[in-house]
């Protein structure tokens, strides 16, 4: 960086970008297609969508490809893209009971109405590297399954059972039991939809949207849930873990973990009927915590988690943090300001990496200070022999 023409900086950036791209294309292999990423690395794309706050599997696959697999970078690309989109509608609150569940387990009970449906999971599988995958024939192991054409059973929400008994404390305040997803569906139409998930009922037509209004503390619960839903997976997991690990009082029992396709509906602009326009794959978690706010009317504290895709640890972590923040307290995960300040992946990624930017002006200032302080201390030591020491006692 000499004292030359301004273009030098731009040229340098261009070269750096080209070197980055080279890492992706410089091998002997065929370029990975966006479709391949979408179909075969869906956990990766789901994480990018979840942290990006936009449901658009193909765009997420493109972002993952462009970012060479870095989920933070992919989420960043999606967020930046999302922020240029026009929002043309909001959905009415979505009811997770309408979800076509492909997986539903309830740790709270042995048996539940509709049954425990394990679904697609490796939870109980031994984690052994499968070397056969190096030479994949992509055979579908379920091809020979005997599928019975019966209607799937109605999976009643387990938390409703507890609510009917009056055991669950409904988080009070302005936006009632609204869990707000920050989401836009851009697969077919590059516009915005808003899906708001509900607890037991919602009177608020337009929940707080942190992408439109700045958040200040104390923050309303919808704002907190939205930030958690968009939060960085590692951060949400780690903070949730801290509560379990002993830094807090939240040791929850999960009422439900449910994965499936949630229909996205809008009000038809002409007829006013509710019409389904698409669906998003989500994972929902509800937990109860045996911490009772009032001794005479003991009720469980309640935590809610909802994420795009199947990242269950994030959904569970989110529900733990929801409960922890409601309960409030001195531990880090119970402090709303602390959690919301650090849980956003784009903010943390950006600020940490910004340390790589030149800081030599600030550093010059710091050098000036430390040298002045050292000079002063050296002069003082020199003077001690000559000056009378004033008695301070």
């Amino acid at each position: 960086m000499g004292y030359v023409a301004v273009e030098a900086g731009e040229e340098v950036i261009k070269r750096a970008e080209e070197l980055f791209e080279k890492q992706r294309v410089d091998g002997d292999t065929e370029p990975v297609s966006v479709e391949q990423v979408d179909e075969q690395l869906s956990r990766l794309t789901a994480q990018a969508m979840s942290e990006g706050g936009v449901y658009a599997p193909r765009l997420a696959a493109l972002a993952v490809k462009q970012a060479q697999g870095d989920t933070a970078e992919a989420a960043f690309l999606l967020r930046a893209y999302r922020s240029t989109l026009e929002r043309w509608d909001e959905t009415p609150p979505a009811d997770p009971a309408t979800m076509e569940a492909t997986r539903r387990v309830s740790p709270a009970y042995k048996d539940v109405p509709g049954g425990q449906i394990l679904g697609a999971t490796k939870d109980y599988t031994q984690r052994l590297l499968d070397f056969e995958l190096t030479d994949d024939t992509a055979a579908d192991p379920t091809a020979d399954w005997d599928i019975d054409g019966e209607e799937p059973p109605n999976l009643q929400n387990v938390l409703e059972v507890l609510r009917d008994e009056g055991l669950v404390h409904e988080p009070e305040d302005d936006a009632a039991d609204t869990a707000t997803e920050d989401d836009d569906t851009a697969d077919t139409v590059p516009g915005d939809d808003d899906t708001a998930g509900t607890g037991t009922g919602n009177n608020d037509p337009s929940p707080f949207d942190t992408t439109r209004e700045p958040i200040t503390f104390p923050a309303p619960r919808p704002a907190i849930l939205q930030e958690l839903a968009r939060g960085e997976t590692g951060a949400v997991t780690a903070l949730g873990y801290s509560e379990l690990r002993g830094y807090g009082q939240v040791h929850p029992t999960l009422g439900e973990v449910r994965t499936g396709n949630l229909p996205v509906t809008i009000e038809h602009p002409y007829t006013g009927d509710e019409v389904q326009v698409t669906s998003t794959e989500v994972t929902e978690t509800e937990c109860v915590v045996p911490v009772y706010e009032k001794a005479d009317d003991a009720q469980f504290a309640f935590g809610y988690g909802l994420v795009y895709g199947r990242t269950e640890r994030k959904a569970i972590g989110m529900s733990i943090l929801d409960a922890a923040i409601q309960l409030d307290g001195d531990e880090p995960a119970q402090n709303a300001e602390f959690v919301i300040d650090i849980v956003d992946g784009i903010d943390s990624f950006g600020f940490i990496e910004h340390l790589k930017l030149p800081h030599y002006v600030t550093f010059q200032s710091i050098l000036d200070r430390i040298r002045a302080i050292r000079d002063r201390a050296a002069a003082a030591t020199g003077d001690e022999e000559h000056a009378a020491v004033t008695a301070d006692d």
Partner: protein
Amino acid sequence: MTDRQATSSTPDSVDALLDGVDADGLAGYNYAYLDEHTKREVRRSILKSIAIPGHQVPFASREMPLARGWGTGGIQASLSLLGPDDTFKVIDQGSDESVNAANIRRLATTTADVATTSDATEASIIQTRHRIPEEVLSDDQILVLQVPITDALRRVDGSDSANRRRHAHKNYSKMWVALYENIVEYGEIKLSARYPVMVADRYLMDPSPIPRWDVPKLDDADNLFLFAAGREARMYAVPPHTSVTPLAFEDREFQVERFDAAACRHCDSTDTFLTEVETDDGERVFACNDTAFCEKRAANPELTKAHHHDDPKAWGPPTDPAVPYGGDTPPSTNGADLGGDD
């Protein structure tokens, strides 16, 4: 909240969008990248900041194609203000060619089609990271500073809600005690950049990590200063002719950086902010930090910092005799002996 009024010509399918992205110039995005709704909101926040000097105004900071921490706040402010008739200068650490400054400039020229310059006297809007240019700015110029940490009180308390209450009640005693404890421990105030200042005798403000050298330029200036933080989602301002005083004791004055009579090795200036460079031979040399001004000085050593004004004005040390600048001598302690400092 919908944006039906937005004027962007959004592509009608993902494929059309992806086609648009291939072409140079980001076809399909609004003028100056941000949609009109965002620009309106940012401008409203700017107006509110100007109305209450030094007060932090929250705004819904949008995600930008640059990472948080890399100037997203400054960009949102600049892009909301730039129009086709503006001239834009971008500097980082005082230099136009810094890679990040170049990147920001690129975004502006591509999406807003503005003229750019490296001459501080020609720009209508200057976006800067951590420096105020050497040349005196005029009353038709706006300086947009990138801010990482918006609250000077963050040094004494991490909680934003507690600090907001302190600001509301002008209760800054914790900050003062922190300065007192500094002097007790080090004999002087050890704060370097991000030196806390009082604006219009009402709000304590963080001037962003500009060196102390630049802090006096904020006081009673002709130009508007805007401070924007994208990650922390806050904006604040120092309007023209506002009083800005750095916190200090009457007998432990605010001090700027000293360069021990070193001169810039390129233009020989002794009145600019210098930064040191370790050369390959192990030598330590100094050079002007404001590279554009350094070029001008190299061509014309007699050039003053206010050469483009009819009424030359002092602008920071050491051209302004009111600002204590030590030169060779260690900081003055007003007669107190160095040895006995308690």
